[in-house]
């Protein structure tokens, strides 16, 4: 397997690479280690990456908070319960229907909602949902984009025409509108394709929708790269040795796409999380009682006057998570190739 530089216009050939390594005073280092070194030097990217990991850790530890600290699950109603805060016993939800505000203690740390559910617990579990959907959707996008980009770029001609025009059709729709249309339709009856059946309230619905709508955004740049890579000498050489198209695609071309894919992934995850929040906010994503940052923002909007924290808390978590991923993703891109022009087009 031959290795090619990460972009067409960056490093051409071993000589240019040696020049780059010399410039970096790291003679003898491979591209991966070089990239890691650059990334380590980018303190801002690392800090935001760490921020994202902290958020992930908090969400992963949601059951610990729920069981050990808050002593309630994310969907348990406590309409008629009472809680003792600072020696004073209060209604979780008063007879007038006013839920308790932030106690800044273990139970009801951020207060309760109209059903007496613990907001902080729902926030952490909501984060799990949003992150799960974001990561899974991004992986689906990456998988489909690789397949589609490889096929279109390698085979060209009719295959490329069909694939590219199909991507154009999907691309033509604003992502949010397409997501809402698909989400609304599937949230009513679920998804049924032959033997495969997905319930309308399943998280798979928003995962599939988000994974699908973002395919053009990743597939097109990959296709462009594949178009260039297929003309390289190492591909010719493999062809001359009798390697079939599939083998060449997956053993010669695909490894050379890895840097691009690595750069795209965090950016796709960030976009997927945002789109999930938007769809759930509009009722076309995650279905109740499952919480996500989007559903929590939507629930909180109705009470923004009397309980702004209900909207602000999930909003802040969403912003920090997406910001962390985006800045870290930029850092990864810069580390892999400082002169790269890989961008996520909208």
């Amino acid at each position, binding site marked *: 397997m031959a290795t090619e530089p990460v972009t067409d216009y960056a490093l051409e050939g071993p000589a240019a690479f040696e020049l780059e390594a010399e410039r970096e005073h790291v003679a003898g280092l491979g591209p991966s280690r070089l990239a890691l070194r650059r990334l380590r030097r980018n303190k801002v990217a690392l800090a935001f990456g760490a921020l994202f990991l902290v958020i992930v850790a908090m969400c992963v530890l949601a059951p610990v908070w729920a069981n050990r600290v808050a002593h309630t699950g994310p969907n348990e109603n406590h309409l008629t319960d009472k809680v003792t805060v600072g020696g004073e016993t209060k209604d979780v939800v008063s007879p007038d229907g006013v839920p308790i505000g932030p106690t800044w203690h273990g139970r009801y740390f951020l207060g309760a909602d109209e059903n007496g559910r613990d907001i902080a617990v729902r926030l952490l579990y909501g984060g799990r949902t949003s992150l799960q959907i974001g990561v899974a959707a991004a992986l689906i996008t990456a998988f489909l984009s690789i397949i589609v980009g490889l096929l279109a770029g390698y085979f060209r001609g009719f295959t490329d025409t069909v694939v590219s025009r199909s991507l154009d059709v999907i691309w033509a729709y604003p992502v949010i509108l397409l997501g809402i249309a698909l989400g609304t339709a599937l949230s009513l009856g679920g998804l049924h394709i032959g033997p495969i059946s997905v319930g309308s309230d399943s998280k798979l619905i928003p995962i599939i929708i988000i994974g699908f709508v973002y395919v053009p955004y990743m597939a097109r740049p990959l296709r462009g790269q594949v178009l260039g890579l297929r003309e390289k000498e190492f591909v010719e050489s493999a062809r001359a040795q009798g390697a079939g198209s599939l083998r060449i695609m997956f053993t010669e071309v695909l490894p050379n796409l890895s840097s691009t894919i690595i750069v795209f992934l965090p950016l796709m995850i960030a976009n997927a999380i945002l789109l999930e929040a938007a769809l759930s906010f509009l009722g076309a994503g995650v279905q109740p009682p499952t919480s996500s940052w989007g559903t929590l923002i939507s629930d909180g909007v*109705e009470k923004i006057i009397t309980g702004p924290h209900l909207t602000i808390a999930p909003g802040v978590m969403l912003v920090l998570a997406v910001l962390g991923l985006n800045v870290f993703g930029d850092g990864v891109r810069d580390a892999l190739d400082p002169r790269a022009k890989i961008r996520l087009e909208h």
Partner: protein
Amino acid sequence: MGKLGRRAAALLVAAFAVTGIAACGGGDDNEGGGGGGGGKSGGSIRIGTVGPDSYDPVLMQTVQAFQPLKTAYTGLLAYKDETGKAGNELIPGVAEKLPDVSSDGKTYTFQVRKGLKYSDGTPVKASDFEVGIKRLLKLSGPYSSFLTTIDGATEFQEKGDPEKDIPGIKPDNKTGKIVVNLTVPDSKFQYAVAEPYAAPVPESKIKYSSMTNDPPPGVGPYKIDVVDPSREFVLTRNKYFNIPGIAKGNLDKITGEVSTNVTKMTQDVINGQLDFMTEDPTGDQLPEVKSKYSDRFSLNPYPPNTYYFSLNSSIPPFNNEKAREAVAYAVDSTALQRIFSGRLKPTCSFIPPGTIGYTDDSNKNCPYGDPNGPGQIDKAKQLVKESGTAGQDVTMWTNSKDPRPAIGEYMRDTLNQIGYKAKTKVLNQQVYFDAIGTKSRKAQIHFNDWFMDFPDPSDLFQPLVTGEALTSTPTFNVGFINDKHVNDEVATLSEERDPADKASDWTELDKYLTGPGKAYVVPYGSELTSTFMSERMDYANCNGIHQVFKNDWTLFCLK
């Protein structure tokens, strides 16, 4: 009246209304009064609403539809446009006087007023009443079952050929006389013909499909224009309207702004960007509204209403009576009271306060425990186990209008506590009742409510729990109940000219319907509804609080 906001048709005869309503007792919160009009004439207002489920008078169900459509479609009879008990009284509408009724109670003779015109200037003919009824039956409107006692109506509904006449309706366009023959005496018939869904419409201007986007012309103080069904509608004065005894409306124009954001709606009324809202302020805003704006806000028990969980008795798990009883035991009305911000009066009676058949003892000796006490989860769990339905998947259906999602969430959690694997499905209010009323949807348990059109219990039982109601699609009988005893009792009791004579029988039927061994429906309370107006409205004189419509928009006026 149907769901949230049926218009509560006015109670017909003073004997019914006074006996039934007076016996029931009113609300204990600011009962609005003195808002019967006589205020300043002219001007325009904006009203916030979640919107009618349909602008087509034969297809509507909700109060949000009744309130505007009542102003545009007057039936042969009408309800007095007055606040207080007087609003229950039936008065002549398109007919020039109350009908002559035969001694056997099966034949009604009406005389259409001369010279009446629709809002587009088309003259009103006697045969237009039959046209309206044919549309209602042909389209299987939600209230079509209220008029199936008309001779030939059921056959017409089944065959649905608009070219054919209904044998039981004999109009004479020359004389203006309409003779209606019923197959059996029917106490609710006169109420039904006072409703918009039974109003006459011009034959040349209608079609036998939904006209929600472009409603037909009607006889009413206002005409309705639908700008965008999901965003705005406008009521403007109908220059052709002139029926003595029916209010012409004080305002020149009423614009309905459709929105699901009740929080913003409330804030807009506070700020004066809206003048009235058909909805109740959300829970967290209610205390502020009550305390700061008490001069233009009140809570009232109108129209009489009942909130309940309906259980689909045709499919698992609630085709099992123990499973249904388990739900009845588990429900905690005091928890639900909090979701209603204290506006719910717990009850175990399906017949609501203010209706014939409801007595002071209705809430005593409830079969599933004190409605003012907690739910009995342990007993419910045991029943679920005994029923063999434990662990089954159950979907709790509710709609998106506040606080119904919270009610749905409460019941989902309760169902999980008693041994089911429950989830929630939330639909937009405008499509919700059609969805749960369609059998193929297989909705197992649902949020439900009913606002009385008139205090005759047949208004409650006939559309909600009888087999006859299943002829409509979608149906109000969302539990798909078809119990012979219920069917027979409702049919018999509905024939009484004065339902007050059979009040105790209605009470017994209520106990049968909700009691052990049946538990077809699980009532939990009756709501106090709110009237909230902007500063510029003359609340003191023109609040329009009406026992039938909740608020009569023709009585609204500005300061």
